[in-house]
């Protein structure tokens, strides 16, 4: 899938965070978005995902009739985990909602290191375990574009290694990644977009 972002402008709280942002993203490529808090990293990801309408500009998927929101995974600040459901139920719902096609629920949980928690109500999970559950969703439904907002939050060093591994495998199979982070995330060969909150870089 080829993504083309053209002339994107983001206005939040009355301020223009960035203006005229344009970039392209092809198969296997990765972009890391950096910048201080409030600079618009989350907004950029949400704009690409189609969760937000841009003030100006557009997000175009060049080689598909589907819109960006049907072709992306979005892992945001909140984990989208329902406490009253078990871990397995959460993941199964994610699979059905997002079109399936990935690996089995149990295999995904195991890959993220929480395989033993499948039948546990999600509300007793720790923050790190919830984040792993959110990341496991990336594996149970296949979508070419991964939009990750501060994905390593609450993850220990082993979790971060797993995350990097997932990204590497995803890119190797033709997927693309845009990750926003204010910490250093070691993604090889990634272009960088720096948002300063006052214009575009």
């Amino acid at each position: 899938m080829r993504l083309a972002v053209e002339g994107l402008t983001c206005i939040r709280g009355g301020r223009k965070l960035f203006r005229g942002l344009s970039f392209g993203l092809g198969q296997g490529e990765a972009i890391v978005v950096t910048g201080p808090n409030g600079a618009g990293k989350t907004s950029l990801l949400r704009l690409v995902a189609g969760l937000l309408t841009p003030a100006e500009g557009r997000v175009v998927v060049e080689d598909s009739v589907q819109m960006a929101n049907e072709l992306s995974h979005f892992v945001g600040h909140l984990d989208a985990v329902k406490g009253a459901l078990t871990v397995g139920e959460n993941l199964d719902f994610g699979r059905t909602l997002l079109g399936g096609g990935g690996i089995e629920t149990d295999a995904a949980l195991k890959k993220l290191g929480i395989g033993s928690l499948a039948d546990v109500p999600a509300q007793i999970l720790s923050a790190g375990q919830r984040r792993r559950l959110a990341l496991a969703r990336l594996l149970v439904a296949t979508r070419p574009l991964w939009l990750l907002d501060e994905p390593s939050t609450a993850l220990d060093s082993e979790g971060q290694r797993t995350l990097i591994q997932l990204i590497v495998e995803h890119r190797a199979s033709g997927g693309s990644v845009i990750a926003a982070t204010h910490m250093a995330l070691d993604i090889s060969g990634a272009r960088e977009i720096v948002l300063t909150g006052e214009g575009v870089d």
Partner: protein
Amino acid sequence: MPLIDLANPRRFQQLARILIPMFALAAAILIGVGLVMGFRAPADYQQGEMVRVMYIHVPFAWLSLGAYTMMAIAALGTLVWRHPLADVAGKAAAQIGMAFCFLCLITGSLWGRPTWGTYWDWDPRLTSVLVLFLLYLGVLALWRAIEDPNRAGRAAAILALVGFVNVPIVKFSVDWWTSIHQPTSVMRLDGPTIHPSMLTPLLISAAGFLALFLTLHLAAMRNELLRRRVRTLRILAAAKAKA
């Protein structure tokens, strides 16, 4: 001038500066003439002098419905055509329309008291206006509740359209409700036949109140644009202060 030119707030302010006094003058003249003619026209043999309230009450009723229609059109402008001033026009229409609606209810109540002995009698027309008033209040409550003007504008636009398609349903159901509860409904003066000597002043007065509505509407739009400018300046100042 193509509509898109008005999209620039500054152009709009210039236009408003010209139009507002014009409409205000027209309003003053037309309302004055209409009311004078109305007072000259014969008093109704049933209701006496109080019928003169009709010259104010009926235009208010027409205009509150007209304002809601304008709000719905502005809503389409916001959501479909994405005209930048559409939501400002919609908010102004909501504010002035609600005020006219409220005045319609008040004058209707005042008309009813000496004529039929009660301040309120749940007749179909007044009840419909009451429900319209509630719909207006809902839209304005939504405007107040959402801080960001653009988001508030989109939300209010959706609600305005939902309300608009419901207005015929509500009108029909209220009329139906009245007919089964009061089989002999009260005949109001502004029924199917109005004496021509009353019709002319009514129409002139209505035209005058329309001009008044446009005056207030343009003024409200201007104020809203200024309000947003102040908000933006405050936000920018706060951002600079942080740095």
